[in-house]
């Protein structure tokens, strides 16, 4: 499918991404309408909203995979890594973790050490790489995809519900890896998540997508019971774990 790549030329000040008046429609149905926001370099933006509110569509527009109206401007030279939602991989596909990482090394002209460093950062053992990707656990495969995204030294990571469908220990390992990346390496992260307690603790700002009204702001402002029930159309509460609290 022919795609139009987002414009990277304009000066954006301290921002790494500026989106203005973004609209996306499929078959005359508006999925995103007149959406505007900016993302500062090193920020951690969480994207929340009910199912069907266009979160994944927003990410697909940001990477230039679909056509849109309005403007998406990345800071010049921005490189991004993308971690998709749980992929429907055939179990018997003869592709190993090593095949996938080797492919990314070639595509991004990176040295082998980058793959080893990426594996360390997501806390994935090298032995796991000999397994076909279809036989990895959900948590292992998602961390492999994060390692894949990290090769090529991206400035921005786009993570689309990376922990969805992963069991509790796997989610914990994945969240810990993402937290380290964000805090220690100051990579700008854009994260779609349904886990509001994770969003509350780790995001520097929250973009909520809702059919009627989208909003952006710090988690303390956006994640109030009133705002949440407005976004989701039903009363929502979430639990903050004390041991990880701010």
């Amino acid at each position, binding site marked *: *499918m*022919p*795609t139009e790549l987002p414009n990277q030329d304009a000066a954006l000040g301290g921002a790494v991404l500026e989106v203005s008046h973004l609209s996306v429609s499929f078959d005359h149905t508006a999925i995103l309408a007149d959406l505007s926001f900016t993302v500062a370099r090193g920020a951690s933006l969480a994207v929340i909203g009910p199912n069907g509110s266009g979160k994944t569509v927003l*990410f*697909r527009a940001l*990477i*230039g*995979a679909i056509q849109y109206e309005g403007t998406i401007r990345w800071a010049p030279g921005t490189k*991004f*890594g*993308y*971690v*998709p939602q749980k*992929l429907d*991989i055939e179990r*018997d*596909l*003869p*592709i*190993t973790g*090593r*095949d*996938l990482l*080797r*492919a*990314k090394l*070639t*595509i*991004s002209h990176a040295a082998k050490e980058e793959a080893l460093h990426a594996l360390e950062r997501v806390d994935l053992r090298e032995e796991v790489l000999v397994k*076909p*990707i279809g036989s990895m656990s959900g948590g292992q495969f998602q961390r492999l*995809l994060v390692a*894949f*995204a990290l090769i*090529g030294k991206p400035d921005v990571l*786009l993570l689309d519900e990376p922990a969805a469908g992963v069991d509790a220990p796997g989610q914990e390992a994945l969240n810990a890896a993402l937290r380290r990346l964000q805090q220690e390496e100051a990579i700008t992260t854009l994260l779609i998540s349904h886990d509001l307690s994770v969003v509350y603790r780790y995001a520097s700002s929250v973009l909520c997508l809702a059919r009627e009204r989208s909003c952006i702001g710090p988690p303390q402002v956006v994640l109030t019971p009133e705002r949440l029930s407005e976004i989701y159309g039903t009363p929502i509460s979430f639990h903050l774990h004390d041991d990880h609290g701010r």
Partner: protein
Amino acid sequence: MDARALIVCAAMAVAAGLVGCFAVMRRMTLAADAFSHVALPGIGLALVFRLNPLIGALAALLAGSMLIWAIEGKTNLSTEAITGVVFSVALAIGSLTATGEELIDALFGAPGSMTIAETVFALVAALAVTGFILKARDRLLVSLVSTEVAIASGIGVASLQLSFLVAFAVTVALGMRYLGVLLMGSLIIIPATVAKRLARSIDGMFAIAIGSALVSTLLGSWIAALTVRPSGPIIVAIAGGLFFVSLLKS
């Protein structure tokens, strides 16, 4: 079987094995088989205009791959659905444009030695397809896992898809002389399916697919020469036998 035919068969088998790996992993198996029928109207027209049927087949296959790619970009239909439509239309036009023994030969392969021009075309085309798959393997692999990840990695997914369809079309045309276009689809799909069952890595899959395609083609051609029978059905029967053997793996 002469040395020239032997070399052409081997080159064709390598190209078919490699293209087949990605066709099978992209779940294009049935589409791939149907796609070979797109050659029919081209063969028919070439016979009407007294051209080499190979030229007509190649032109029709290339036009077919462009058409499938363009429709795919314009709609959200799957490659399989679009190929189904294009194939049926091609079959209808093909049956209207030509009949006769030459058409049967093009469909099922013909015995006899190849001309110098046919040999050169076959070798150049096989080399080009093999080179493309080996060069594009990493990009093909990533786009197979996720289109979005591929785009974010800087891969031109649309042009890669077109290049793959063209490589597929060229491979089908390549097999026309010995296997015929109808059976060439099988040589692309069966060895790769055997490899998918047995391999545990992409290099392993390439090796097994190429090996199975080579064994089927060379052994099949030899038996055909000994028994004075058309080579295509024997080659496909051997490939099918390898598939059933691969089922023994639990």
